[in-house]
């Protein structure tokens, strides 16, 4: 008894007193036995009972079980020896148990994993909610709008966008009947009638198998409906269908398969004898919860940096666009205006500028002003500037520019001077130099004063080319001499074309005099030598002059423009010493007689 470990702590010290009783039994005397029986019977009974409790393993186990919890508490509170002793034993036990039947552990663990996963997701949602509730990024606002529009919470929307995939619903279906054994859905997913989904999935599965005559267990494994896909895993009696949003990893297929196997192992009998009562499948819900898995994509910081860098650069570009473009535009506008202002013959009276948005239109410019007809075209002037002609409206009113170059140009335009004329303008006076036809000189005198800006005209220096030519012909004519033979009206030593040249001169002379409005007459004077009488000489000289006149009249010259006179030998060309001298005196000469002197009137 002393060796019993429990005794060490539990036996009350009073029990030590029972030990002398043992010796009482050892006596052989019957009387003594009787006496002992009389005296000690109650104690003996108690002792026997105690012996029996110790000897009987069942009773002893019962006794120990009553004190064991207290003993363990006492033991662990005093030192760690017990835990140290028990740990290897426990490890062995667990290992042996898992080796023998892992299903029990899987079942228990899965019950814990399901809620743990949900709890983790829930925390993740909370984290995201807090993190993003203050986010005013463009995407954040977009998601807020989506949340408002769809009635989902902001966290749900964020989660949906960050998911790689999520298993939203899981159905466990009895394959033969198509009846739903159990189903589970993520907390925010609206689940439609699971019974019908279950039936229809079975029907589709049957249809596919039937239609394509697949072998054995081969059936439809995946259905794709927009963002959703349905993965179907088939077991001996069941179908496990998972509705997935996004792109699930193949690991999920393994998870589904394991879950299906575990369910089968746990519920083999119920599945094989299934008669429509699905209440027994309530227990396998934790397995299905394992399938409700979600995977999120993590936004890398690197991407965030790129995003903000891009955003900043975009901001700079927009700022430049907003501030630089109008500034550059204003510069161009000012430059263009200055260019116009510097141009003589153009006066800007007012300008208007309508700013544009610099995205669709660059604004409109309006210029009002005065423009001399001789000034260059303003549009041509601004072709080199960067202002778009379509955005520029110019309204010009005509005026006469008083700058000397404009007055000179205007004078040239009005007077159309010949090339031989040099026009200059100074202090209100227009001066012409050089030579010009008579008509131009006459007209210029009248027109010049009418030109705006010309207050005086100096044209006296201009040589009248017509008058000059008239004098030249006159001189040429007046040196022409026709010689005659002695006492006759017959020409002597006459040049072949002398008479024609005379006619040309006369014609030109008369034409020019007409042009110059000069009244002239050509005097044809006949001469003789001194031989013969004065009377005879006078007659002969007249005849000689008349002969020339007759010739000219025959050639169309009006007789009224010619006068003949015979001067006999009164105006000899040479002193008559020889016959040759006399020959030079038998002649006809010409003189041009003008009523006015032959110069400018």
């Amino acid at each position: 008894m002393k060796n019993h470990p429990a005794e060490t702590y539990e036996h009350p010290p009073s029990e030590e007193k029972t030990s002398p009783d043992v010796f009482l039994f050892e006596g052989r005397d019957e009387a003594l036995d009787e006496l002992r029986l009389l005296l000690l019977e109650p104690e003996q009974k108690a002792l026997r009972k105690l012996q029996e409790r110790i000897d009987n393993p069942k009773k002893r186990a019962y006794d120990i079980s009553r004190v064991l919890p207290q003993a363990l508490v006492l033991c662990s509170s005093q030192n760690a020896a017990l835990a140290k002793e028990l740990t290897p034993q426990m490890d062995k036990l667990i290992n042996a148990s898992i080796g023998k039947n892992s299903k029990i552990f899987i079942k228990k663990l899965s019950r814990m994993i399901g809620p743990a996963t949900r709890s983790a997701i829930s925390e993740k949602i909370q984290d995201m909610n807090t993190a993003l509730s203050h986010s005013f990024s463009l995407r954040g606002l977009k998601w807020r709008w989506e949340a408002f529009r769809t009635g989902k919470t902001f966290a749900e929307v964020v989660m949906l966008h960050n998911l790689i995939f999520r298993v939203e619903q899981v159905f466990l279906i009895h394959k033969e009947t198509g009846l739903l054994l159990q189903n589970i859905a993520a907390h925010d997913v609206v689940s439609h009638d699971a019974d019908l989904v279950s039936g229809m999935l079975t029907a589709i599965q049957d249809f596919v198998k039937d239609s394509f005559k697949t072998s054995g267990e081969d059936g439809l494994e995946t259905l794709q409906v927009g963002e959703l896909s349905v993965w179907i895993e088939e077991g001996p009696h069941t179908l496990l269908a998972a509705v997935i949003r996004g792109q699930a990893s193949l690991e999920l297929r393994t998870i589904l398969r394991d879950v299906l196997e575990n369910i089968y192992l746990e519920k083999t009998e119920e599945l094989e004898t299934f008669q429509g009562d699905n209440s027994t499948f309530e227990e396998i819900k934790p397995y299905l919860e394992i399938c409700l898995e979600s995977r999120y994509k993590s936004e890398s910081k690197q991407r965030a940096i790129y995003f903000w860098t891009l955003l900043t650069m975009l901001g700079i570009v927009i700022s430049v666009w907003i501030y630089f473009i109008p500034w550059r535009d204003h510069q161009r506008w000012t430059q263009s205006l200055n260019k116009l202002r510097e141009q003589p013959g153009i006066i800007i009276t007012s300008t208007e500028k309508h700013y544009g948005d610099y995205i669709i239109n660059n604004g409109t410019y309006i210029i009002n002003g005065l423009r001399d007809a001789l000034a260059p075209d303003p549009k041509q002037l601004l072709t080199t500037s960067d202002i778009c002609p379509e955005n520029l409206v110019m309204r010009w009113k005509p005026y006469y520019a008083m700058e000397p170059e404009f007055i000179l140009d205007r004078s040239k335009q009005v007077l159309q001077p010949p090339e031989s004329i040099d026009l200059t303008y100074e202090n209100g006076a227009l001066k012409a130099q050089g030579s010009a036809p008579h008509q131009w000189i006459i007209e210029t005198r009248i027109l010049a004063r009418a030109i705006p800006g010309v207050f005086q005209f100096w044209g006296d220096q201009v040589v009248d080319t017509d008058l000059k030519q008239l004098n030249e012909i006159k001189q040429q004519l007046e040196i022409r001499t026709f010689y005659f033979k002695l006492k006759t009206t017959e020409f002597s030593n006459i040049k072949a074309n002398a008479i024609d040249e005379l006619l040309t001169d006369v014609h030109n002379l008369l034409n020019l005099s007409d042009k110059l409005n000069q009244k002239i007459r050509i005097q044809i004077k006949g001469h003789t030598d001194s031989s013969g009488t004065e009377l005879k000489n006078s007659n002969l000289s007249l005849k000689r002059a008349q002969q020339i006149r007759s010739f000219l009249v025959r050639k169309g010259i009006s007789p009224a423009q010619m006068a003949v006179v015979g001067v006999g030998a009164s105006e000899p060309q040479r002193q008559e010493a020889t016959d040759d001298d006399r020959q030079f005196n038998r002649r006809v000469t010409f003189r041009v007689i003008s009523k006015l002197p032959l110069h400018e009137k």
Partner: protein
Amino acid sequence: MIQKKICLLGSFAVGKTSLAKRFVHGIYTDKYHTTIGVNIRKKIMQTNDCTVNLVIWDLAGEDEFEKVRLTYLRGASGYLLVADGTRRETLNKAITLKSGTEAVIGEKPFILLLNKVDLDDNWEIDPSLINDFVQKNWLVMATSAKTGQGVEEAFQMLTRKMAEG
């Protein structure tokens, strides 16, 4: 909850879908839409001692071009054989379908429904013929999806029979 799969079988256009719709949704439309494959509906029925979730597989009607896909019958706890009372030949088809069904799912509770009983002017089924079926322990009921006559009762009856096993 107890769930039971039942099937509606019969020739084309005998009124299987109309019966299912009348039973599940309480509606009837004149428009005829042929069923492609199968339609599945459900209704929770209260029998004397339990609640049954009735999953009704309304199979496409059989005609000369399309046989009933017997795989859809698997796991059914009972079925309704539907014939059109105004078309005698649909009754023969129902008899054929019954044997086909039994080959797949064995003997299960069933009811023969003679539908379109509202069209009594065109009725082609002789009462003596019905007697023959009754003699064979068949349950025969006259129904009308249009008026609703006998529909609820038929489904109730089948559910009871299935519950009895």
